């Protein structure tokens, strides 16, 4: 039996919610936050380890578009669509330049 796409999307949204720590250490992933928190209101906060460091994902909204695409608002307010894959403990994004940013659930 096919699952209701809306139900699937809601389950995925709930799985997004929480705190994630970046495990990628590539050059291209450096602009992304070391810590990401998605909350139930559809907003997120991203932080680098250093308090005053610039993060491309710093604060704003996020919206799951499909089971593999999420839209995230960025530091200059551009809303960008990213490919993602999600499990209970791993969240992996791929940006428009092909950079893979891997996060692991911290909580």
């Amino acid at each position: 039996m096919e699952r209701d796409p809306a139900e699937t999307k809601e389950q995925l949204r709930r799985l997004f919610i929480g705190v994630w720590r970046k495990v990628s250490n590539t050059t291209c992933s450096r602009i992304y936050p070391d810590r990401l928190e998605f909350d139930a209101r559809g907003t997120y906060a991203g932080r680098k380890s250093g308090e005053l460091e610039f993060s491309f994902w710093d604060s704003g909204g996020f919206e799951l578009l499909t089971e593999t695409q999420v839209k995230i608002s960025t530091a200059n307010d551009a809303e960008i669509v990213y490919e993602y894959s999600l499990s209970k403990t791993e969240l992996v994004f791929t940006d428009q330049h092909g950079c893979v940013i891997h996060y692991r659930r911290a909580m």
Partner: protein
Amino acid sequence: MQRDGSNTIASGDLYLHHIPSFWPWPGPIPQPWPIFPVAEPNPSNGIPIFARGRYRYYLSVTQILEGFTIANSFTLGFEMHRFDLATRTWTNEGAFTALMTWTTAPPGYPSTADFLTGEVKNGSGAVVGALTMGWVSAYLRRAVVEIDRVSVSEAPLDNGTGVDWLTIFDQIGWDVDVLESNSNVTEPSGESWSDAELHAGMLAWRDSVNLDQEWRYHVLCVRRLDSTSRGIMYDAYGTDSNNVPREGCGISSHWIIPNTNTWGLVAGLRFGTATGPYFRTALHETGHAAGLYHNTVDLGIMNTTDVIAAGAVPPVQFPNNIQWSFAPDDKKRLRHMPDVWVRPGGIPFGSSYSTAPISPDDLVAEAKGIELRVSPLLESVPIGAPVRISFRLVNTTKEALPIPSSLSMKSGHVRGKVIDPSGSMRTFSPIVRCLEEETLNFLGPGSSATYSVTLLRGGQGALFPSPGAYRVLVDVMWDVAGSPLRVRGETSVMVTQTVDEAHAAAARRILATPDSLVVLVVGGDHLKDGVDAINAGLSHPVLRPHFAFVEAKRLAKRFGKRKADWKAVADLVDETTVMSQAEVKRLAELARDAEKEAPRESVQWVSKMLRRYVDTTSADEDTATLVRSL
């Protein structure tokens, strides 16, 4: 220079403003070297603007005259940070001092008495130059905001209730001219604009400008935006096709605000007709053009619209919770970050704040004789539970000393930081502030006053988001006769791992639901997400004791048509319930004021639990007296 109460901050930007047109000297160098007149800007023209390419130094002022003097001089201390245009980096060339002496200003200065000169000495005491300062303006910086729009897009001029560009920029000491220019901008390819089209539109429609002579920020108002909903500072990264960053921004007048509760009073409206939020977006994007990044420390201009909308605490609805000012740290950046950071065409968007120098704040005096002793109610808590902190102000002297009459979080005197195991810092401050006139009480010699705070979330999200050892720093600040005082205390708390998957799920729900904090602080049945999150905590035996009081407090009060449910309160409160002293007192007050219809045995049970608490802990006299009177 800026004075905020007794906090004085000063900074300087030095440009090379005269290069002889005949350099290099043609022929043999004359001896002695002739003195050439230096082309100074005309001080009667106000704040001078120099070419970006001639920026040389940032002065971080570390010492300046704070109050009055009857002498005719004072010592100015500063660090000189040399700017390298090619690498866009600063090098600290060391600390310098100058004994600045008042003298009569040359002709043209608005204030003849506010003119000083002094010899500059390096750290070794050698004279290395001369410094001249003359007052030219009450403002710190000046700029122009030009607004161009397609004909059907509104111009963002004010918030609809008296706050306009001048109001906002006066707060930070910027002299801003707002120019409504073109109202007939043509759409290049339909109603929605790409970032590249916005940039091209800015170049095509902006009034003639020389960014070396004027700080001009451009705001382009169009119907829709390709790359975002509300607004964008497009002049960054690859879109900055002319390599002149942060010249302008675009805002969308025809985005339709979603028709959901989150959007409060403007749900479903076309954005251009939602005057306040529309204007806020223009301010926000201009803030990005001035080099600012998002800031969630409060609901100020550099926070994002969706976070502010989602952050409205009932009964206040968005957009009435918009804070019409920049956050304090952003105000300081706009006043005191180097010119090249904030001016259009300066440093590209995306550099870290940490790469640029900025003058330090005045030191806030420590309140001598008062100690702040901070301790956690529990040395370890399970992940997902709030952390209850007690703090005690102790007068260690033999005299009575003034302290604030209230140190609840609502009083605004208490804020702090939580540092997680990885060293990341998150801040906490009041979510609800009572704006009453500040009163002081005198704390007797040897006496103490105890307060408590329950921590769960702060401006950056969950304060304790993962297991591990945390440091909690608490600051209590107040003014005495206009002088700011502070005491600081610190404690640590261990957050323990989840015990099973159900605990993890409940903890995630609580920590990721911003309304869980609101329910914790103010209660309210209508905060469904928050109430559900708290109930998720109550459903797990590890978290239940930590949230029992929160739910008991909610149910002990009527809400709308729901009566107080003391039977449910009694079911929640038992020997394992974790409560701070303030929470015990609150529950005792609720029990005291319970309606006559409340089941007597339920109220008595709760009173019994409270008496047990008072008998087994060192509760203060007020709390103990109240509980024993039940």
